[in-house]
Protein backbone atom coordinates (compact mmCIF):
# COMPACT_ATOMS: atom_id res chain seq x y z
CA UNK A 1 0.00 0.00 0.00
CA UNK A 2 1.14 3.50 -0.72
CA UNK A 3 2.24 5.44 2.34
CA UNK A 4 -0.46 7.69 3.76
CA UNK A 5 0.91 11.18 4.14
CA UNK A 6 -0.51 14.30 5.69
CA UNK A 7 0.50 17.94 5.87
CA UNK A 8 0.01 20.17 8.86
CA UNK A 9 0.75 23.81 9.31
CA UNK A 10 1.65 25.65 12.47
CA UNK A 11 2.83 29.21 12.85
CA UNK A 12 4.27 30.09 9.49
CA UNK A 13 3.60 31.90 6.27
CA UNK A 14 2.48 28.69 4.58
CA UNK A 15 4.98 29.34 1.86
CA UNK A 16 6.27 25.80 2.19
CA UNK A 17 2.76 24.41 1.76
CA UNK A 18 2.33 26.63 -1.22
CA UNK A 19 5.54 25.31 -2.66
CA UNK A 20 3.98 21.87 -2.54
CA UNK A 21 0.92 23.08 -4.39
CA UNK A 22 3.34 24.45 -6.94
CA UNK A 23 4.57 21.04 -8.05
CA UNK A 24 2.83 21.50 -11.36
CA UNK A 25 5.16 19.22 -13.25
CA UNK A 26 5.62 16.54 -10.65
CA UNK A 27 2.33 16.43 -8.81
CA UNK A 28 1.00 13.45 -10.71
CA UNK A 29 4.27 11.54 -10.26
CA UNK A 30 4.23 12.23 -6.55
CA UNK A 31 0.73 10.90 -6.23
CA UNK A 32 1.96 7.61 -7.68
CA UNK A 33 4.06 7.06 -4.59
CA UNK A 34 1.89 8.37 -1.79
CA UNK A 35 -1.71 8.94 -0.79
CA UNK A 36 -2.32 12.41 0.57
CA UNK A 37 -4.84 11.87 3.32
CA UNK A 38 -4.81 15.27 4.94
CA UNK A 39 -3.83 18.64 3.59
CA UNK A 40 -5.94 21.41 5.01
CA UNK A 41 -4.89 23.97 2.46
CA UNK A 42 -6.06 21.83 -0.40
CA UNK A 43 -8.68 19.41 0.85
CA UNK A 44 -11.39 18.61 3.38
CA UNK A 45 -10.47 15.04 4.38
CA UNK A 46 -8.84 13.94 7.58
CA UNK A 47 -7.36 10.69 8.84
CA UNK A 48 -6.47 9.00 12.12
CA UNK A 49 -3.07 7.63 11.33
CA UNK A 50 -0.28 8.79 9.08
CA UNK A 51 2.72 6.96 7.73
CA UNK A 52 4.41 10.29 7.20
CA UNK A 53 3.33 13.57 8.74
CA UNK A 54 4.86 16.72 7.29
CA UNK A 55 4.90 19.64 9.66
CA UNK A 56 5.28 23.22 8.63
CA UNK A 57 5.62 26.13 11.01
CA UNK A 58 6.90 26.87 14.49
CA UNK A 59 5.35 26.04 17.80
CA UNK A 60 4.28 29.34 19.32
CA UNK A 61 1.30 28.77 21.58
CA UNK A 62 0.03 26.29 24.16
CA UNK A 63 -2.53 25.00 21.67
CA UNK A 64 0.22 24.36 19.11
CA UNK A 65 2.02 22.24 21.70
CA UNK A 66 -1.05 20.17 22.31
CA UNK A 67 -1.74 19.68 18.65
CA UNK A 68 1.79 18.66 17.70
CA UNK A 69 1.80 16.03 20.45
CA UNK A 70 -1.43 14.70 19.05
CA UNK A 71 -0.04 14.51 15.52
CA UNK A 72 3.15 12.87 16.72
CA UNK A 73 1.15 10.17 18.49
CA UNK A 74 -0.65 9.36 15.28
CA UNK A 75 2.37 9.41 12.94
CA UNK A 76 5.04 6.85 12.16
CA UNK A 77 7.45 9.29 10.62
CA UNK A 78 7.41 13.00 11.27
CA UNK A 79 9.19 15.44 9.01
CA UNK A 80 9.75 19.13 9.74
CA UNK A 81 9.34 21.26 6.63
CA UNK A 82 10.97 24.62 6.27
CA UNK A 83 12.97 26.77 8.59
CA UNK A 84 10.01 27.73 10.81
CA UNK A 85 9.54 24.08 11.71
CA UNK A 86 13.19 23.09 11.67
CA UNK A 87 14.60 25.78 13.94
CA UNK A 88 11.98 28.45 14.49
CA UNK A 89 13.05 30.49 11.49
CA UNK A 90 12.08 34.13 11.29
CA UNK A 91 9.46 33.59 13.99
CA UNK A 92 12.23 33.09 16.49
CA UNK A 93 13.38 36.67 16.02
CA UNK A 94 10.64 37.65 18.41
CA UNK A 95 12.43 35.61 21.07
CA UNK A 96 15.18 38.22 20.98
CA UNK A 97 12.83 40.83 22.47
CA UNK A 98 11.10 40.60 25.84
CA UNK A 99 7.77 38.91 25.19
CA UNK A 100 5.63 41.65 26.75
CA UNK A 101 7.25 44.29 24.63
CA UNK A 102 6.53 42.18 21.56
CA UNK A 103 2.87 41.82 22.42
CA UNK A 104 2.55 45.49 23.21
CA UNK A 105 4.04 46.53 19.88
CA UNK A 106 1.29 44.68 18.07
CA UNK A 107 -1.75 44.72 20.34
CA UNK A 108 -1.16 47.72 22.62
CA UNK A 109 -3.13 47.44 25.81
CA UNK A 110 -4.92 44.33 24.58
CA UNK A 111 -1.65 42.51 24.73
CA UNK A 112 -2.83 39.69 26.99
CA UNK A 113 -5.75 38.70 24.80
CA UNK A 114 -3.89 35.94 22.98
CA UNK A 115 -1.59 33.31 24.46
CA UNK A 116 1.90 33.18 23.05
CA UNK A 117 5.08 31.23 23.75
CA UNK A 118 8.61 31.76 22.47
CA UNK A 119 8.75 30.49 18.87
CA UNK A 120 10.13 26.96 19.01
CA UNK A 121 11.37 24.38 16.53
CA UNK A 122 9.10 21.35 16.24
CA UNK A 123 12.00 19.24 17.47
CA UNK A 124 12.07 21.08 20.77
CA UNK A 125 8.59 19.75 21.49
CA UNK A 126 8.41 16.32 19.84
CA UNK A 127 10.78 13.93 18.12
CA UNK A 128 11.46 14.89 14.52
CA UNK A 129 12.69 12.14 12.23
CA UNK A 130 13.75 14.15 9.20
CA UNK A 131 13.90 17.73 8.13
CA UNK A 132 13.68 19.72 4.94
CA UNK A 133 15.34 23.04 5.48
CA UNK A 134 14.97 26.38 3.82
CA UNK A 135 12.67 29.36 3.73
CA UNK A 136 10.89 28.34 1.74
CA UNK A 137 11.89 24.72 1.47
CA UNK A 138 12.65 23.95 -2.14
CA UNK A 139 10.54 21.56 -4.12
CA UNK A 140 13.64 19.72 -5.18
CA UNK A 141 14.69 19.19 -1.61
CA UNK A 142 11.25 18.01 -0.65
CA UNK A 143 11.17 15.59 -3.57
CA UNK A 144 14.56 14.21 -2.65
CA UNK A 145 13.33 13.47 0.82
CA UNK A 146 10.14 11.91 -0.45
CA UNK A 147 11.97 9.70 -2.95
CA UNK A 148 14.50 8.70 -0.31
CA UNK A 149 11.69 7.67 2.03
CA UNK A 150 10.00 5.75 -0.78
CA UNK A 151 13.29 3.95 -1.55
CA UNK A 152 13.95 3.33 2.11
CA UNK A 153 17.19 5.28 2.22
CA UNK A 154 18.42 8.11 4.41
CA UNK A 155 17.46 11.51 3.01
CA UNK A 156 20.41 13.79 2.24
CA UNK A 157 21.90 15.57 5.24
CA UNK A 158 23.70 18.59 3.73
CA UNK A 159 26.84 19.08 5.74
CA UNK A 160 28.50 21.56 3.38
CA UNK A 161 28.07 25.31 3.24
CA UNK A 162 26.13 27.22 0.58
CA UNK A 163 29.45 28.48 -0.81
CA UNK A 164 30.16 25.03 -2.24
CA UNK A 165 27.18 25.11 -4.55
CA UNK A 166 27.81 28.78 -5.24
CA UNK A 167 31.33 27.99 -6.40
CA UNK A 168 30.24 25.03 -8.48
CA UNK A 169 27.92 27.37 -10.34
CA UNK A 170 30.80 29.78 -10.84
CA UNK A 171 28.98 32.71 -9.31
CA UNK A 172 30.89 35.84 -8.60
CA UNK A 173 31.17 35.87 -4.83
CA UNK A 174 29.17 38.69 -3.29
CA UNK A 175 32.10 39.52 -1.04
CA UNK A 176 34.04 40.38 -4.19
CA UNK A 177 31.18 42.74 -5.02
CA UNK A 178 31.30 44.49 -1.68
CA UNK A 179 28.29 42.70 -0.21
CA UNK A 180 28.04 40.58 2.91
CA UNK A 181 26.79 37.00 2.65
CA UNK A 182 26.09 34.22 5.15
CA UNK A 183 26.92 31.47 2.66
CA UNK A 184 30.14 30.30 4.36
CA UNK A 185 28.42 29.07 7.51
CA UNK A 186 24.99 28.26 6.16
CA UNK A 187 23.97 24.69 5.47
CA UNK A 188 23.80 24.12 1.72
CA UNK A 189 21.34 22.25 -0.43
CA UNK A 190 19.56 25.24 -1.96
CA UNK A 191 21.81 25.34 -5.01
CA UNK A 192 22.97 28.75 -3.76
CA UNK A 193 19.82 30.25 -5.17
CA UNK A 194 20.12 33.67 -3.53
CA UNK A 195 23.71 34.43 -4.53
CA UNK A 196 22.92 33.07 -7.99
CA UNK A 197 20.29 35.78 -8.24
CA UNK A 198 22.62 38.45 -6.93
CA UNK A 199 21.23 38.53 -3.41
CA UNK A 200 23.08 37.68 -0.18
CA UNK A 201 22.46 34.40 1.62
CA UNK A 202 20.28 35.06 4.64
CA UNK A 203 21.08 31.81 6.40
CA UNK A 204 17.62 30.34 5.95
CA UNK A 205 18.81 26.74 5.95
CA UNK A 206 20.39 27.09 9.35
CA UNK A 207 23.96 27.23 10.54
CA UNK A 208 26.34 24.33 9.91
CA UNK A 209 27.53 22.13 12.74
CA UNK A 210 30.56 23.58 14.53
CA UNK A 211 30.61 26.94 12.78
CA UNK A 212 33.35 29.48 13.33
CA UNK A 213 31.01 32.23 14.54
CA UNK A 214 33.73 34.64 15.62
CA UNK A 215 35.50 34.18 12.32
CA UNK A 216 32.29 34.80 10.45
CA UNK A 217 31.55 37.99 12.39
CA UNK A 218 35.08 39.11 11.60
CA UNK A 219 34.56 38.39 7.90
CA UNK A 220 31.32 40.36 7.90
CA UNK A 221 32.62 43.35 9.76
CA UNK A 222 35.75 43.49 7.66
CA UNK A 223 33.45 43.84 4.65
CA UNK A 224 31.88 47.00 5.87
CA UNK A 225 29.02 46.32 8.24
CA UNK A 226 28.98 47.00 11.95
CA UNK A 227 29.26 44.21 14.51
CA UNK A 228 25.72 44.92 15.60
CA UNK A 229 24.48 44.65 12.04
CA UNK A 230 26.50 41.47 11.48
CA UNK A 231 24.93 39.86 14.51
CA UNK A 232 21.47 40.80 13.39
CA UNK A 233 22.11 39.29 9.98
CA UNK A 234 23.29 36.09 11.54
CA UNK A 235 20.23 35.87 13.74
CA UNK A 236 17.70 36.55 11.02
CA UNK A 237 16.88 32.86 10.69
CA UNK A 238 18.92 31.46 13.49
CA UNK A 239 17.87 33.18 16.69
CA UNK A 240 17.28 29.79 18.24
CA UNK A 241 20.55 28.28 17.04
CA UNK A 242 23.22 30.88 17.57
CA UNK A 243 24.09 32.39 20.92
CA UNK A 244 25.78 35.74 20.46
Amino acid at each position, binding site marked *: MKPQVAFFDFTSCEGCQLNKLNFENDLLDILKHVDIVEFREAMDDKADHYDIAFIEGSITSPSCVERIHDIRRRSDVLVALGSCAVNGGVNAMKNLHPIDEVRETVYGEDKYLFATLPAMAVSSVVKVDYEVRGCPMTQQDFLKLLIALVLGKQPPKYGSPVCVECKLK*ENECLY*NRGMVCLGPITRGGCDAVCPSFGQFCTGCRGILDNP*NIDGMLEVMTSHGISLDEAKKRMLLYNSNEVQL
Partner: protein
Amino acid sequence: MECFSLLRSDVPALIDHLGDFGEVIAPHGKGDVSYSFEAVQDSCDVVLDYNRTLLPLKKMFLPPVEKLMGFSLKNESYEQVDVAITSRVFFGVHSYEMQSILRLDHSMLTGSAESNYFKRRQSSRFVGISFEPDEFHFSESVGIVIEEMEGFDLFLNEVDGDFQLYVLTENGQEMLNGFDKINITEPEIVEGRHFKKKIRYHYNRLPRVFQYAYHSEVWADVASRCVGCGACTLTCPTCFCFDVQDEVEVTAEDGIRQRSWDSCMLSTFAEVAGGENFREKTINRTRHRLYRKFKYITDEEGLPWCVGCGRCTAFCPAGISMPDIVNELIQEDEKAQYHRTVRV
Protein backbone atom coordinates in the same frame (compact mmCIF):
# COMPACT_ATOMS: atom_id res chain seq x y z
CA MET B 1 60.30 28.79 -32.66
CA GLU B 2 58.61 31.21 -35.00
CA CYS B 3 57.37 34.55 -33.83
CA PHE B 4 54.83 36.81 -35.52
CA SER B 5 53.43 40.23 -34.78
CA LEU B 6 49.68 40.58 -34.37
CA LEU B 7 47.67 43.75 -33.84
CA ARG B 8 45.33 43.79 -30.85
CA SER B 9 42.52 44.78 -33.19
CA ASP B 10 43.10 41.61 -35.22
CA VAL B 11 42.74 39.26 -32.27
CA PRO B 12 38.98 38.73 -32.83
CA ALA B 13 39.79 37.69 -36.38
CA LEU B 14 42.28 35.18 -35.03
CA ILE B 15 39.67 33.83 -32.62
CA ASP B 16 37.20 33.44 -35.47
CA HIS B 17 39.86 31.67 -37.48
CA LEU B 18 40.58 29.28 -34.62
CA GLY B 19 36.94 28.27 -34.71
CA ASP B 20 37.90 25.98 -37.61
CA PHE B 21 39.82 23.80 -35.17
CA GLY B 22 37.07 23.30 -32.65
CA GLU B 23 34.91 25.12 -30.19
CA VAL B 24 36.86 28.12 -28.91
CA ILE B 25 36.75 28.67 -25.17
CA ALA B 26 38.07 31.94 -23.82
CA PRO B 27 37.80 34.33 -20.87
CA HIS B 28 34.69 36.50 -20.66
CA GLY B 29 33.59 39.10 -18.15
CA LYS B 30 31.31 37.76 -15.44
CA GLY B 31 29.43 39.71 -12.76
CA ASP B 32 30.88 43.05 -11.71
CA VAL B 33 34.57 42.39 -11.39
CA SER B 34 35.11 38.76 -12.41
CA TYR B 35 35.90 36.56 -15.36
CA SER B 36 35.08 33.08 -16.49
CA PHE B 37 36.04 30.71 -19.31
CA GLU B 38 33.10 30.38 -21.67
CA ALA B 39 32.50 29.18 -25.21
CA VAL B 40 32.92 32.09 -27.60
CA GLN B 41 29.73 33.33 -29.24
CA ASP B 42 31.12 36.63 -30.47
CA SER B 43 34.88 36.96 -30.66
CA CYS B 44 34.61 40.63 -29.69
CA ASP B 45 33.32 39.61 -26.25
CA VAL B 46 36.54 37.81 -25.39
CA VAL B 47 38.54 39.57 -22.69
CA LEU B 48 42.27 39.72 -23.28
CA ASP B 49 43.29 41.50 -20.07
CA TYR B 50 41.98 39.67 -17.06
CA ASN B 51 43.47 38.78 -13.74
CA ARG B 52 42.05 35.30 -13.23
CA THR B 53 38.82 33.48 -13.92
CA LEU B 54 36.53 32.46 -11.07
CA LEU B 55 36.86 28.77 -11.79
CA PRO B 56 40.02 27.40 -13.33
CA LEU B 57 40.14 25.78 -16.74
CA LYS B 58 39.97 22.50 -14.87
CA LYS B 59 36.19 22.84 -15.13
CA MET B 60 36.44 21.92 -18.80
CA PHE B 61 38.20 18.62 -18.13
CA LEU B 62 36.85 17.63 -14.76
CA PRO B 63 33.43 19.31 -14.75
CA PRO B 64 32.14 20.63 -11.40
CA VAL B 65 29.24 18.22 -11.69
CA GLU B 66 29.62 15.24 -13.99
CA LYS B 67 27.29 12.38 -14.78
CA LEU B 68 29.11 9.09 -14.37
CA MET B 69 26.29 6.82 -15.47
CA GLY B 70 22.56 6.57 -15.81
CA PHE B 71 20.79 3.68 -14.12
CA SER B 72 17.48 1.97 -13.89
CA LEU B 73 16.38 0.86 -10.45
CA LYS B 74 13.86 -1.58 -11.80
CA ASN B 75 16.25 -3.50 -14.04
CA GLU B 76 19.28 -3.09 -11.77
CA SER B 77 21.21 -1.99 -14.81
CA TYR B 78 23.17 1.04 -15.89
CA GLU B 79 23.95 2.94 -19.02
CA GLN B 80 27.39 4.21 -19.86
CA VAL B 81 28.03 7.86 -20.47
CA ASP B 82 29.60 8.65 -23.76
CA VAL B 83 32.10 11.45 -23.40
CA ALA B 84 31.93 12.85 -26.89
CA ILE B 85 35.34 13.79 -28.21
CA THR B 86 34.91 17.30 -29.50
CA SER B 87 37.92 19.35 -30.46
CA ARG B 88 38.30 22.43 -28.36
CA VAL B 89 40.65 25.37 -28.54
CA PHE B 90 41.35 27.11 -25.27
CA PHE B 91 42.22 30.69 -25.98
CA GLY B 92 43.73 33.31 -23.70
CA VAL B 93 45.11 30.94 -21.09
CA HIS B 94 47.66 32.19 -18.55
CA SER B 95 50.88 30.29 -17.98
CA TYR B 96 50.03 29.20 -14.43
CA GLU B 97 46.74 27.82 -15.69
CA MET B 98 48.48 25.73 -18.33
CA GLN B 99 50.84 24.45 -15.68
CA SER B 100 47.90 23.52 -13.52
CA ILE B 101 46.47 21.43 -16.35
CA LEU B 102 49.78 19.60 -16.65
CA ARG B 103 49.66 18.87 -12.93
CA LEU B 104 46.07 17.75 -13.21
CA ASP B 105 47.17 15.37 -15.99
CA HIS B 106 49.48 13.76 -13.52
CA SER B 107 46.79 13.47 -10.85
CA MET B 108 44.17 11.98 -13.15
CA LEU B 109 46.44 9.76 -15.22
CA THR B 110 48.80 8.15 -12.74
CA GLY B 111 47.80 4.87 -11.19
CA SER B 112 44.44 4.21 -12.77
CA ALA B 113 44.15 6.56 -15.73
CA GLU B 114 40.71 8.01 -15.99
CA SER B 115 39.22 7.70 -19.47
CA ASN B 116 36.73 10.60 -19.29
CA TYR B 117 39.48 12.99 -18.37
CA PHE B 118 41.81 11.56 -20.97
CA LYS B 119 39.27 11.92 -23.78
CA ARG B 120 38.51 15.53 -22.97
CA ARG B 121 42.13 16.35 -22.54
CA GLN B 122 43.39 14.70 -25.70
CA SER B 123 41.22 16.70 -28.02
CA SER B 124 42.25 20.14 -26.82
CA ARG B 125 44.64 22.81 -28.00
CA PHE B 126 45.86 25.79 -26.05
CA VAL B 127 46.62 29.38 -26.93
CA GLY B 128 48.38 31.19 -24.11
CA ILE B 129 48.48 34.87 -23.31
CA SER B 130 50.70 37.00 -21.09
CA PHE B 131 49.21 38.91 -18.17
CA GLU B 132 49.91 41.73 -15.78
CA PRO B 133 50.26 40.22 -12.28
CA ASP B 134 47.98 41.69 -9.63
CA GLU B 135 48.37 41.67 -5.85
CA PHE B 136 47.38 38.00 -5.66
CA HIS B 137 49.44 36.32 -8.36
CA PHE B 138 52.66 34.71 -7.15
CA SER B 139 53.35 32.07 -9.75
CA GLU B 140 56.94 33.21 -10.18
CA SER B 141 57.57 32.03 -6.62
CA VAL B 142 56.53 28.54 -7.60
CA GLY B 143 58.65 28.57 -10.71
CA ILE B 144 56.16 29.71 -13.31
CA VAL B 145 56.96 32.94 -15.11
CA ILE B 146 54.46 34.94 -17.13
CA GLU B 147 55.97 33.81 -20.43
CA GLU B 148 56.24 30.11 -19.50
CA MET B 149 55.10 28.47 -22.75
CA GLU B 150 55.18 24.79 -21.91
CA GLY B 151 51.95 23.07 -22.90
CA PHE B 152 50.76 25.75 -25.31
CA ASP B 153 50.43 25.44 -29.05
CA LEU B 154 50.45 29.18 -29.55
CA PHE B 155 51.33 31.98 -27.15
CA LEU B 156 50.43 35.65 -27.29
CA ASN B 157 52.90 37.91 -25.56
CA GLU B 158 51.71 41.46 -25.18
CA VAL B 159 54.22 44.04 -26.35
CA ASP B 160 53.22 47.69 -26.16
CA GLY B 161 49.54 46.95 -26.44
CA ASP B 162 49.84 44.62 -29.43
CA PHE B 163 51.00 41.02 -29.46
CA GLN B 164 53.83 38.79 -30.46
CA LEU B 165 52.51 35.40 -31.44
CA TYR B 166 54.79 32.44 -30.77
CA VAL B 167 54.27 29.17 -32.60
CA LEU B 168 55.22 26.33 -30.31
CA THR B 169 53.95 23.08 -31.83
CA GLU B 170 52.96 21.55 -35.10
CA ASN B 171 49.37 21.94 -34.00
CA GLY B 172 50.07 25.61 -33.50
CA GLN B 173 51.57 25.84 -36.97
CA GLU B 174 48.49 24.21 -38.41
CA MET B 175 46.20 26.58 -36.57
CA LEU B 176 47.77 29.57 -38.29
CA ASN B 177 47.49 28.13 -41.80
CA GLY B 178 45.54 30.56 -43.92
CA PHE B 179 45.53 33.32 -41.31
CA ASP B 180 47.12 36.32 -42.97
CA LYS B 181 46.94 39.09 -40.39
CA ILE B 182 50.34 38.21 -38.93
CA ASN B 183 53.87 39.17 -39.91
CA ILE B 184 57.07 37.39 -39.03
CA THR B 185 59.08 39.28 -36.43
CA GLU B 186 61.92 39.03 -33.90
CA PRO B 187 60.97 37.99 -30.34
CA GLU B 188 61.30 40.81 -27.84
CA ILE B 189 61.76 40.59 -24.12
CA VAL B 190 59.21 42.61 -22.18
CA GLU B 191 60.59 44.49 -19.20
CA GLY B 192 58.75 45.69 -16.17
CA ARG B 193 56.15 42.99 -15.56
CA HIS B 194 56.67 42.23 -11.89
CA PHE B 195 54.97 40.02 -9.40
CA LYS B 196 53.78 42.07 -6.44
CA LYS B 197 53.36 39.01 -4.25
CA LYS B 198 56.22 36.68 -3.49
CA ILE B 199 57.10 33.70 -1.38
CA ARG B 200 60.41 34.53 0.27
CA TYR B 201 62.15 31.24 -0.49
CA HIS B 202 62.81 29.48 -3.71
CA TYR B 203 60.28 26.71 -4.03
CA ASN B 204 63.03 24.12 -3.77
CA ARG B 205 63.41 25.02 -0.13
CA LEU B 206 59.75 24.78 0.77
CA PRO B 207 59.50 21.02 1.36
CA ARG B 208 62.16 21.43 4.01
CA VAL B 209 60.21 24.22 5.67
CA PHE B 210 57.13 22.05 5.63
CA GLN B 211 59.02 19.14 7.06
CA TYR B 212 59.22 21.02 10.34
CA ALA B 213 56.00 23.01 10.11
CA TYR B 214 53.52 20.34 11.10
CA HIS B 215 53.13 21.60 14.65
CA SER B 216 53.58 25.26 13.84
CA GLU B 217 51.58 27.92 15.68
CA VAL B 218 50.63 29.39 12.32
CA TRP B 219 47.92 26.78 11.75
CA ALA B 220 45.90 27.73 14.79
CA ASP B 221 45.99 31.37 13.80
CA VAL B 222 44.79 30.60 10.30
CA ALA B 223 42.15 28.22 11.61
CA SER B 224 40.75 30.87 13.91
CA ARG B 225 40.04 33.06 10.92
CA CYS B 226 38.93 30.39 8.44
CA VAL B 227 35.16 30.00 8.21
CA GLY B 228 35.40 26.67 6.42
CA CYS B 229 33.60 27.67 3.24
CA GLY B 230 35.83 25.67 0.91
CA ALA B 231 36.25 28.51 -1.57
CA CYS B 232 40.02 28.11 -1.57
CA THR B 233 39.97 24.50 -2.65
CA LEU B 234 36.95 24.69 -4.92
CA THR B 235 38.58 27.39 -7.00
CA CYS B 236 42.08 25.90 -6.93
CA PRO B 237 43.19 24.62 -10.34
CA THR B 238 45.20 21.73 -8.93
CA CYS B 239 42.65 20.44 -6.43
CA PHE B 240 40.64 17.53 -7.75
CA CYS B 241 38.80 15.90 -4.86
CA PHE B 242 35.25 14.86 -5.56
CA ASP B 243 32.17 13.39 -4.03
CA VAL B 244 29.79 10.90 -5.67
CA GLN B 245 26.03 10.89 -5.24
CA ASP B 246 23.10 9.01 -6.72
CA GLU B 247 20.17 11.13 -7.81
CA VAL B 248 16.82 9.49 -8.45
CA GLU B 249 14.00 10.95 -10.51
CA VAL B 250 10.56 11.62 -9.09
CA THR B 251 9.32 8.49 -10.79
CA ALA B 252 11.66 6.50 -8.49
CA GLU B 253 12.52 4.35 -11.49
CA ASP B 254 15.57 5.91 -13.08
CA GLY B 255 18.41 8.05 -11.92
CA ILE B 256 22.00 9.03 -12.40
CA ARG B 257 25.22 8.63 -10.49
CA GLN B 258 27.18 11.84 -10.57
CA ARG B 259 30.26 13.28 -9.06
CA SER B 260 30.84 16.84 -7.96
CA TRP B 261 33.85 18.72 -6.71
CA ASP B 262 34.44 18.33 -3.03
CA SER B 263 36.83 20.08 -0.69
CA CYS B 264 39.13 18.87 2.03
CA MET B 265 38.39 22.14 3.84
CA LEU B 266 34.83 21.04 4.56
CA SER B 267 34.30 19.58 7.99
CA THR B 268 32.53 16.49 6.69
CA PHE B 269 35.19 15.56 4.17
CA ALA B 270 36.88 12.84 6.21
CA GLU B 271 33.92 11.86 8.32
CA VAL B 272 32.73 8.26 8.24
CA ALA B 273 29.62 6.43 9.36
CA GLY B 274 29.65 6.13 13.13
CA GLY B 275 30.83 9.68 13.57
CA GLU B 276 34.61 9.26 13.42
CA ASN B 277 36.15 12.28 11.71
CA PHE B 278 39.74 11.86 10.64
CA ARG B 279 40.29 15.59 10.20
CA GLU B 280 37.91 17.00 12.69
CA LYS B 281 39.35 20.45 13.39
CA THR B 282 39.84 23.34 11.00
CA ILE B 283 43.47 23.35 11.97
CA ASN B 284 43.86 19.79 10.62
CA ARG B 285 42.17 20.73 7.40
CA THR B 286 44.07 23.96 6.76
CA ARG B 287 47.31 22.16 7.31
CA HIS B 288 46.30 19.34 5.01
CA ARG B 289 45.45 21.84 2.27
CA LEU B 290 48.88 23.42 2.36
CA TYR B 291 50.71 20.13 2.69
CA ARG B 292 48.89 18.97 -0.43
CA LYS B 293 50.26 21.97 -2.25
CA PHE B 294 53.85 22.04 -0.95
CA LYS B 295 54.81 18.70 0.51
CA TYR B 296 52.99 15.48 -0.20
CA ILE B 297 53.00 15.46 -4.00
CA THR B 298 56.00 17.76 -4.14
CA ASP B 299 58.14 15.19 -2.34
CA GLU B 300 57.40 12.72 -5.10
CA GLU B 301 57.34 14.92 -8.16
CA GLY B 302 59.76 17.67 -7.22
CA LEU B 303 57.29 20.43 -8.08
CA PRO B 304 55.03 22.50 -5.89
CA TRP B 305 51.42 21.53 -6.52
CA CYS B 306 50.42 25.19 -6.23
CA VAL B 307 50.74 27.25 -9.40
CA GLY B 308 50.46 30.67 -7.76
CA CYS B 309 47.26 31.76 -9.48
CA GLY B 310 46.15 33.47 -6.27
CA ARG B 311 42.57 32.23 -6.48
CA CYS B 312 42.48 30.73 -2.99
CA THR B 313 43.56 34.08 -1.64
CA ALA B 314 41.52 36.38 -3.84
CA PHE B 315 38.34 34.37 -3.27
CA CYS B 316 38.71 33.68 0.45
CA PRO B 317 36.10 35.74 2.28
CA ALA B 318 38.35 35.77 5.33
CA GLY B 319 41.26 37.14 3.36
CA ILE B 320 43.47 34.18 4.21
CA SER B 321 46.50 34.36 1.98
CA MET B 322 48.37 31.31 0.75
CA PRO B 323 51.72 33.09 0.23
CA ASP B 324 51.36 34.85 3.59
CA ILE B 325 50.92 31.54 5.38
CA VAL B 326 53.97 30.14 3.63
CA ASN B 327 55.98 33.24 4.48
CA GLU B 328 54.93 32.97 8.11
CA LEU B 329 56.02 29.36 8.17
CA ILE B 330 59.34 30.41 6.67
CA GLN B 331 59.76 33.10 9.28
CA GLU B 332 58.97 30.68 12.06
CA ASP B 333 61.40 28.18 10.60
CA GLU B 334 64.13 30.80 10.50
CA LYS B 335 63.50 31.67 14.11
CA ALA B 336 63.65 28.02 15.08
CA GLN B 337 66.89 27.60 13.19
CA TYR B 338 68.32 30.66 14.85
CA HIS B 339 67.47 29.27 18.26
CA ARG B 340 68.95 25.92 17.31
CA THR B 341 72.21 27.56 16.21
CA VAL B 342 72.42 29.86 19.19
CA ARG B 343 71.99 27.01 21.58
CA VAL B 344 74.78 25.02 19.96
